């Protein structure tokens, strides 16, 4: 993956200060994060850009939150307190937002306590959502539980026949004994597999599905060498395919050509004009913008879905609530693009915690099996953080309904587990 610059030139200074405070040598840190000492030296003197992925690796090595390296401790603390104040649990309260800086200056200890509690609550909430998702949607878990229940049902009915049914022929008795043996073995193996799988839940943030593995690989820099370290065959195959697609895109639209094109202000602000300027298809340009993240597209994320709305690729942007496959916000402009193929849509959106994002969405259609073959639709949504407050007319989106705090939403499918909601309204009741 191509590296890109973060907005702040002070990141390097913070990296240097943190390293020195730990009395760590430049060469040790550089080796640990996979770059040369000379390159780290340039970064520390703010003479080289540093990608979000590298910031994350450096932060881990320096035992400091990545956002503190990228944005600075004071800014991070102010943002953390504002985020805590924006949480739905604080709705109806009136925290003095204009005095956050003073609070941190006068009561730094209390400020840190508040932030620590808010972060812990956020972490627990995240874990709750993750576990809830797995319990209700994880196909492996559902299949395995069904397998257990089927084996238990067979064992119970068969054992009851042998005990309660009185006279049974030898042939049937032998058959039922064999069935009991088979089902008890199946139950034993399935239960072991289930326990092993549930144990893996303890590894917080561990990738659970091949798609999630591939997304984690993408987020960590998408290096060729890392593909072989992915856990599943399916993930390795998907990553290799994606890598080939990325390489093909880069061959058609090289980094330099894209970087040069975005220097034009009009083209930078409008991917449709950018595509016209490059004389390239818009979908290719959107994919390359999410991959290269050139000036104006720093921190960009990308969502791709097929005609059924199933998400086939998720590339994160900082602060954006990435939708779960099969359970995302119906209001995302990505899905609106499906209804108007070949038409590019621009829409500002705002997340429940008040962060604004500009989105560009576009859907394409194809018939890979010729004129008689099925018509396939693919939609893409490129999204970038908006500096400053979200525009007043931004579309209010959220994560999956179950974990969304917006009480009034025309697209709500089910009540939220985080904030009490009306049992049924909007889209649900009208269709039943």
């Amino acid at each position, binding site marked *: 993956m191509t590296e890109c610059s973060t907005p702040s030139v002070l990141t390097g200074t913070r990296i240097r200060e943190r390293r020195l405070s730990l009395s760590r040598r430049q060469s040790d840190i550089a080796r640990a994060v996979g770059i040369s000492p000379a390159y780290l030296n340039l970064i520390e003197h703010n003479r080289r850009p540093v990608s979000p992925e590298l910031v994350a690796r450096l932060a881990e090595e320096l035992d400091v939150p990545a956002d503190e390296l990228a944005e600075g401790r004071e800014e991070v603390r102010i943002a953390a307190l504002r985020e805590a104040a924006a949480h739905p649990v604080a709705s109806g309260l009136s925290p003095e937002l204009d005095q956050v800086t003073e609070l941190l200056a006068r009561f730094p200890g209390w400020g840190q306590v508040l932030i620590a509690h808010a972060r812990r609550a956020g972490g627990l909430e995240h874990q709750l959502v993750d576990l809830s998702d797995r319990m209700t949607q994880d196909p492996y878990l559902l299949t395995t539980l*069904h397998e257990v229940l089927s084996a238990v049902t067979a*064992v119970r009915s068969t054992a009851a026949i042998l005990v309660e049914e009185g006279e049974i022929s030898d042939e049937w008795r032998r058959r039922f004994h064999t069935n009991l043996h088979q089902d008890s073995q199946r139950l034993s193996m399935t239960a072991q597999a289930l326990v092993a799988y549930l144990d893996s839940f303890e590894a917080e943030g561990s990738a659970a599905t091949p798609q999630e593995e591939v997304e984690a690989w993408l987020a960590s820099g998408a290096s060729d060498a890392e593909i072989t370290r992915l856990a599943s065959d399916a993930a390795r195959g998907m990553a290799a395919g994606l890598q080939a697609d990325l390489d093909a895109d880069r061959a058609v639209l090289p980094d330099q050509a894209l970087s040069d094109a975005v220097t034009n202000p009009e083209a930078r602000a409008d991917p449709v004009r950018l595509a016209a300027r490059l004389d390239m298809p818009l979908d290719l340009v959107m994919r390359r913008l999410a991959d290269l993240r050139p000036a104006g597209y720093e921190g960009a994320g990308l969502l791709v879905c097929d005609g059924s709305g199933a998400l086939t690729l998720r590339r994160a942007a900082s602060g954006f609530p990435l939708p779960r496959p099969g359970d995302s916000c119906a209001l995302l402009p990505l899905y609106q693009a499906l209804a108007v193929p070949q038409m590019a849509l621009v829409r500002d959106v705002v997340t429940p915690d008040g962060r604004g994002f500009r989105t560009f969405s576009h859907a394409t259609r194809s018939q890979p099996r010729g004129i008689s073959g099925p018509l396939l639709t693919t939609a893409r949504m490129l999204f970038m953080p908006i500096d400053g407050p979200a525009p007043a007319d931004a579309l209010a989106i959220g994560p999956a309904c179950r974990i969304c705090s917006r009480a009034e939403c025309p697209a709500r499918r089910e009540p939220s587990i985080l904030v009490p909601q009306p049992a049924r309204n909007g889209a649900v009741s009208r269709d039943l």
Partner: protein
Amino acid sequence: MQDILMIEDEVNIAEAVRFILSREGWQVALHADGAGALEAIRHHRPRLLILDLMLPNRSGTEVLADLRADPDAELAATPVLMLTARGQVDDAAAQADHVLSKPFDNADLRAIVRGMLG
């Protein structure tokens, strides 16, 4: 016409249920897949359909919806006992005449079938 057609992909469950109900004097036919289920129902025209919810290729819910939408009104009205591995009866399964959760008691199964066949 068969008394009962059971659509269940778990062979050992199907075998146990057939044994229990056969002892009551009912004839029980088996089909193991969601695919071709409607054809099997048309072929056997059972007085009672015992239908598993989680079937390969086509779920019990889909099979039931197909059956209820069949133009043959008599076939569409076939009484259905749905076997479900889920504790809750969802809206689609509510189209069944009875729902029995797995694992079940053989005596309960017998009593429900007796009640449905009259």
